[in-house]
């Protein structure tokens, strides 16, 4: 089941999940705040995954800069049964991180194929952003908790963002 904190990510995220048959998908800001998710049933799991994904991203970006002069764009980790893919995507709200976990029902090639479509869709979204307050400020934890509450149906939407495409 898909839930989103901002409505414009719902359609592309749903298409990605339907096509690629992944187990979990999570779209977050690099700060760790959540835009949308699929597959998670508990807010605490989303919060943990978002924080860890943001940490991995920050680490590999710096590692990439050290080794290659620029940050790595995506990360793939193959576990015994599940695999993890983490990549960045440009959106109208800035760069976001996309974390997905998949098993033998999908493959890295399929995830990369459909992620490129998701990345293109997100980049082409035209979103009105009436509330342009910075995400990282002293209210970070309040914002994070509000987003998680929205994802799991415990709070009304804070932002009134209208998709125009």
């Amino acid at each position, binding site marked *: 089941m898909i839930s989103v904190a901002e409505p414009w990510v719902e359609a592309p995220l749903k298409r990605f999940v339907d096509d690629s048959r992944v187990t979990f998908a999570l779209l977050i800001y690099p700060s760790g705040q959540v835009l949308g998710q699929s597959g998670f049933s508990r807010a605490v799991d989303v919060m943990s995954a978002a924080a860890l994904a943001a940490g991995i991203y920050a680490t590999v970006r710096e590692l990439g800069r050290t080794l290659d002069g620029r940050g790595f764009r995506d990360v793939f980790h193959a576990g015994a049964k599940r695999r993890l893919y983490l990549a960045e995507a440009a959106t109208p709200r800035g760069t976001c991180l996309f974390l997905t976990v998949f098993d033998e029902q999908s493959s*890295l*090639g*399929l995830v990369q194929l459909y992620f490129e479509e998701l990345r293109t869709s997100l980049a082409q979204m035209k979103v009105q952003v009436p509330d342009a307050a910075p995400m990282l400020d002293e209210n970070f934890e309040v914002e994070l908790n509000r987003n998680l509450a929205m994802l799991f149906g415990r709070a009304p939407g804070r932002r009134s963002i209208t998709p125009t495409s």
Partner: protein
Amino acid sequence: MKTNLTPIISALTRQRGVRGSLLVDETDGVIIDATLHVGMKGPAFAALAASLYRKARLSADAAGLGGVTFLRLRATEGHVCAAGKNEMVLVIVADARANIGLIRMEMLKALERLVI
């Protein structure tokens, strides 16, 4: 980038009507080596072809038919042929005028050389 597998892969594209040949990891759906005509979307095709082969293999297994030795998909303008072994899939894209019997024989021979 050429690998030691490249000569075997590229030899298949010398068959009449063959537009490309790819060696793909069945689990990950990514290209191990490939020789493709200009304009072919290699990574996308590899991912989808590996998924198709994997599902065919699982279907044959579920039906009690044993392993898939050769898979042929016939489309309006050509063929996709796949044969796999040891989690690798050899995939050929060929146009409608290709001699599939000959291609099949060459693919199975190539597969033996690739997975020793």
